[in-house]
């Protein structure tokens, strides 16, 4: 498959008073054209940091230390801010988490979408823009008349649909959906996920889903990457990783999540907390919580092993990880 986005050895650090926080550490993956990739992990594991690095919207104290982000042949990392600005939204856009606050409360929703189009397509006339917004609204299941309304007149689900419309407005090459449904109630969540998936398939969008919710990722993505403490620990096709995770963390994460569709299984709690990224543990970062840890885990970082075609895992003892425990009905 042709790659629209390639991320190589991406490393991003925050500098704080106490030292350096390694938020993203040597992360590499590729996104195929028209593919949906899911990144999953607990909060604070670096998923959102990856997303923000991709669109290069980092806090003042954050710095991409090495690596490359090649979007359709252009490396975004060395670009100066003004060049990067022209790529944002036109080439890589985002569906933000927390639809509530992603809209500026004082402007009409349509105007906020038009603003993005105006910036990237200065020649577009107002009537063309309104036409386009109406089309997008219909695509995401909103009444086009809503474009002249203010965000507070939208319900949570409608706001999120409008956010999706805005993300699509400039025909980006890649869309990053960061917790696209987290703030919504379950029924709306499901509707929006289905809608997103439908649109993605219809338009052939390349999309990166980011969520802490394994169920969400399972529903929408073709491939899945599991992140832990700033590292990508497992990456593979969804149909392979889900039934048979190879990394102990992925295993425990899946075992702790009930699956609605799959076979019933026993739930196992995932104990402990992610490490402090100021002083990450030596060796494998998961070893203090890992039930399969051996001596080598505490000293040496595990390399990536290809367990199957396109399915890689960073673990010394991946062969020890059992199948997800099945509970007989």
């Amino acid at each position: 498959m042709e790659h629209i986005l390639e991320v190589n050895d991406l490393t991003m650090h925050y500098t704080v008073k106490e030292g350096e926080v390694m938020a993203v550490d040597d992360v590499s993956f590729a996104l195929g054209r028209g593919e949906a990739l899911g990144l999953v992990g607990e909060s604070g594991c670096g998923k959102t940091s990856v997303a923000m690095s991709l669109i290069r919207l980092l806090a003042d104290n954050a710095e991409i230390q090495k690596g490359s982000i090649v979007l359709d042949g252009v490396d975004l990392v060395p670009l100066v801010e003004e060049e990067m600005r022209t790529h944002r939204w036109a080439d890589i856009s985002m569906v933000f988490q927390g639809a509530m606050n992603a809209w500026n409360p004082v402007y009409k929703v349509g105007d906020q979408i038009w603003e993005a189009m105006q910036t990237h397509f200065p020649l577009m006339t107002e009537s063309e823009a309104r036409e386009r917004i109406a089309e997008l609204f219909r695509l995401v299941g909103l009444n086009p008349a809503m474009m002249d309304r203010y965000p507070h007149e939208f319900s949570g689900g409608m706001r999120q649909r409008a956010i999706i419309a805005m993300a699509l407005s400039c025909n980006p090459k890649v869309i990053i959906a960061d917790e696209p449904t987290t703030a919504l109630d379950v029924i709306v969540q499901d509707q929006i996920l289905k809608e997103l998936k439908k649109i993605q398939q219809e338009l052939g969008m390349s999309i990166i889903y980011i969520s802490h919710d394994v169920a969400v990722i399972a529903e929408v993505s073709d491939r899945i990457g599991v992140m832990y403490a700033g590292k990508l620990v497992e990456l593979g096709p969804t149909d392979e990783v889900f039934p048979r995770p190879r990394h102990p963390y992925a295993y425990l994460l899946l075992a702790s999540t009930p699956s609605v569709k799959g076979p019933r299984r026993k739930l196992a709690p995932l104990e402990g907390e992610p490490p402090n990224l100021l002083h990450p543990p030596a060796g494998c970062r998961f070893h203090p919580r890992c039930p399969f840890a051996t001596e080598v885990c505490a000293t040496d970082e595990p390399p990536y092993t290809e367990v199957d075609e396109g399915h890689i895992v960073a673990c010394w003892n991946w062969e020890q990880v059992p199948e997800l425990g099945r509970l007989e009905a």
Partner: protein
Amino acid sequence: MLKFIGKRTVQNILVFIVFLTATFFLLQAQPGDITDQFLSNPKITPEVRQQFAERLGLTGTLWEQYVRYMKNFFTGNLGVSFSEYPKEVMDIIAERLPRTLALFLFATFLAFIVGFKSGKLLAWRRGKRGEHVITLTGVFFQTVFYPWFAVVMIWIFAFFLGWFPAGKFLTVDKWLTAERTFDANAVFDRMLLTVLAVAVLIIAAEIIGRRMNSRVAGRRFIWGTRVLTLIALVVWWEAVWPEMIPFALDIAYHLVLPTVTLSFVGFGGWMLLTRASMLETLREDYILTARAKGLPDKVVRDRHAARNALLPVTTSLVIGLAFLIGGGVVTETVFSWPGMGQTLLSAASQQDIPLTIGAFAFIAVLALIAHLVVDIMYMYLDPRIRVGG
């Protein structure tokens, strides 16, 4: 929207009635009778004194006095000034109110614009050098001993640099030597009316322009109105009141220094407040959205961050206005600006109670109207209140 304005207006009128009642009881609580001080004044005979007492509603039972007092107030019958006897209080106020209004409006406008813009820029370059210097400057202007500051301003700009006159409403020589058929108030009232008309036209154009469905056409309409209004202003004065222009400019020249000085009262507070409020908005998600959309920094700063930072600043405008009104009294005194504040002060220090109360009541009305305007402004700025909220 109209319902909201109506509700606020009624509320304000109620507040004013409570306020008048409180003033009435304060007068009652004062030892003796306010006309006592004229016992020894040869100019005022006992009969006149009795008339005063009757006009001021100082005869009859407490309730009768109260009713008469309120009635007099709302019919504009504020009595006769003691210190400027036999001038009617209402006439004195009618003469001086426009001058205070001009000073107050211009200073508020200037302080708000400059305070907001500088606060905005300072927040945008947050975390860089000079943080302490900025805070100290802001606090200095907010807490400076204002009368002293006004004097220092006169030293610098009137005596040392000599750019502006040191005080007064107009250049006396110029007015005395010129042949003219009008007085200063006539000129000044026309100036004020012109400014108000311009303001109303520009604000109306803004509202209509924003309501238009096409944003491009709306913007053209707004700018067109602005330019046309300014042209009309010049043409009107040249055509209708050409002989007044040099005198109007003379008054305007005298207005500059007091206005600038008074504006410093509000400037510091509004700068610090805008900066704090802007730093808060900059953390909002929609700022991230705006940046992710690839909008230029200036657009993110002005259209998104500053526009929202304006809301809390507008709310606290009310407190700033109270300061500005107080500062206005001092400004008028130091600059010998013959307005309501100076009138209030001289009346108060000469125990001219009718004029004191009259001036005070009108200053209170000014404050109430200012608050009402701020409320309406806030409603206009925040669609969550304006639309359906």
